[in-house]
């Protein structure tokens, strides 16, 4: 039955943004176990983790496509449509990056040299922490709509964005330390391996960077 009142309510994109971000966070979190397996040289176990990363990334992709299809032009929202669409792209890029890292490492069965192992694990955990903080931010969207984007709530979000930035900055520092340490020992290893290892370090740092961008997008979404 076409009833104007029941037709009036569109499907909220916010719930889907949150579900998507939660998938992305799960996907990134798998990197932790993947790295443990890779460091101990247990490649079959690493492959299992890589598979679950890929499956989570695929699920996130499907959700992204679904959301895009469910955002007709006639939808009236408290946030701009293009902001929502960009936000989902930014979120999705995090998962893509996690899959790339695991894929490259698995494909080359890359070894992490002992001098940087500890810091490397810290860097991965750091990047995951930034993603978790981004998820916390996205979950704040509920309360933002609930209060009709009240100033107090917007301030709260701003605070959490600062926290996100701080967390990302600490991964930057870590990334530099690792590169420095690796530079000292790189001549002891095969040059090609080292080239790819630098690439991985940069990509993990980039993971945190992409998670940080969620905060930036949210800021433009909230401020109007």
């Amino acid at each position, binding site marked *: *039955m*076409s*009833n*104007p*009142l*029941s*037709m*009036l*309510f*569109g*499907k*909220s*994109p*916010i*719930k889907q943004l949150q579900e998507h971000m939660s998938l992305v966070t799960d996907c990134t979190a798998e990197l932790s176990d993947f790295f443990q397996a890779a460091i101990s040289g247990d490649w079959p176990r690493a492959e299992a983790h890589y598979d679950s990363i890929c499956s989570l990334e695929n699920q996130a992709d499907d959700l992204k496509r679904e959301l895009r299809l469910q955002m*007709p032009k*006639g*939808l*009236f*929202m*408290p946030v701009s449509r293009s902001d929502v669409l960009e936000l989902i792209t930014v979120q999705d890029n995090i998962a893509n990056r996690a899959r790339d890292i695991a894929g490259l490492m698995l494909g080359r069965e890359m070894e992490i040299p002992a001098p940087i192992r500890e810091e490397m694990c810290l860097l991965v955990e750091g990047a995951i922490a930034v993603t978790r903080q981004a998820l916390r931010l996205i979950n704040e969207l*509920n*309360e933002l*709509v*609930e*209060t*009709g*984007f*009240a*100033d*107090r*709530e917007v301030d709260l979000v701003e605070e959490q964005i600062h926290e996100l930035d701080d967390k990302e900055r600490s991964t930057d520092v870590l990334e530099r330390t690792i590169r420095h340490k690796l530079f000292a020992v790189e001549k002891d290893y095969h040059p090609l391996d080292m080239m790819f290892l630098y690439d991985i370090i940069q990509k993990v740092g980039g993971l945190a960077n992409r998670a940080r961008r969620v905060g930036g997008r949210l800021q433009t979404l909230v401020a109007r």
Partner: protein
Amino acid sequence: MTLFAEYGQILIILACIFGFFMAWGVGANDVANAMGTSVGSKAITLKQAILIAMVFEFLGAYLAGGAVTATIRSGIIDAGAMVDMPHYLVYGMLSALLAAGIWLLIASVLGWPVSTTHSIVGAIVGFAAVGIGPEFVQWSKITHIVASWVVSPLVAGIISFALFRSVQYLILDTDDPFARAKRFIPIYMFLVGFLISMVTMVKGLTYVLSDSGITLGMGHAALLAILIGIITAVIGIYFLRRIQRNPEQEKHNRFYSVEKVFAILMVFTACCMAFAHGSNDVANAVGPLAAIVGVVKSGAVTNTTAMPSWILLLGGIGIVVGLGTYGFKVMATIGKKITELTPSRGFAAELGAASTVVLASATGIPVSTTHTLVGAVLGVGLARGIAALNLRVIGTIFTSWLITLPAGAGLAILFFFFFKGLFG
């Protein structure tokens, strides 16, 4: 007239049947829209909604439905010019009831969005303009009514926008929304009680108490309305006291307990909405009936004869029966689709729509409750309170006007000539 002496009884019985059928249709379709927001936000259960609707639709129809009924009965057609042909008015009103009722039935079966108000107004204008003559239609009044169809959703939108903004300022955007909610929500409850009783006393009761000769001065009415408003708020405070914080649920949603407080308020606004709906929409069914009874009983067209209150009673009962036999099903369907509306915004939309409709009722203007409610919800949306609203619905509303008005008119013209041929 000999016609009325011969067929008077039959004509009145026919009118009662058609009027009751129409009232049944209002109860079966429209009430669901008025109550759907409350059910959808889970502030009240389906059973509670039916109970509230039955009581307050009836009260609204009986206590405050008089003014709009008078408009439908004698405000659209220039009855004064029809003294020579009272039987045409009877045929016309019969056809209008039948046309609107049948059109509503067809449209519901086919799933088209229609409005009871638009069907009946279209039908009356149709038979009068084509069957009798365009000069018998009070076009200025029609312009008024049609303009109100655009204005009423706008007004409702503005009121609910302001209401939600006040909620944001007073309750949601504060350190302790739960405590503030308990403190400020009785004010909104007072507004509900005041509004309903004021409209009832100033406008509605004149039609009910016209026989007894009791009249209330404006000052007395206002005082009494304030008193009733305070009583409403006190009842509300009693129920608010029983709401406790739920820290477990607040972990998932910080505003869980606050919404529980608003859910109590929504019980009150649901009553207000049902009352408003009853006061405006009962006229669609009993207005034509009142016209027919008036003409047949007195044998002439008069504007002055008082309307018997049993007519409003019949309409009220018809609405309740319609709700009980079919309307509850529609209500359940709509409630399932409106889940994005939490009590804190559902109440703002309902109170905005209900006050607009009740004021329209007081001034005797038939408006569409559903369209007014859509306007009110959009108002809350403009205050950034709802995650996603489908604006295409505005187009649907315009289309429903374009379809319903000619359809109601066409059917009414058809029936008018049929009755004219039958009774002469």
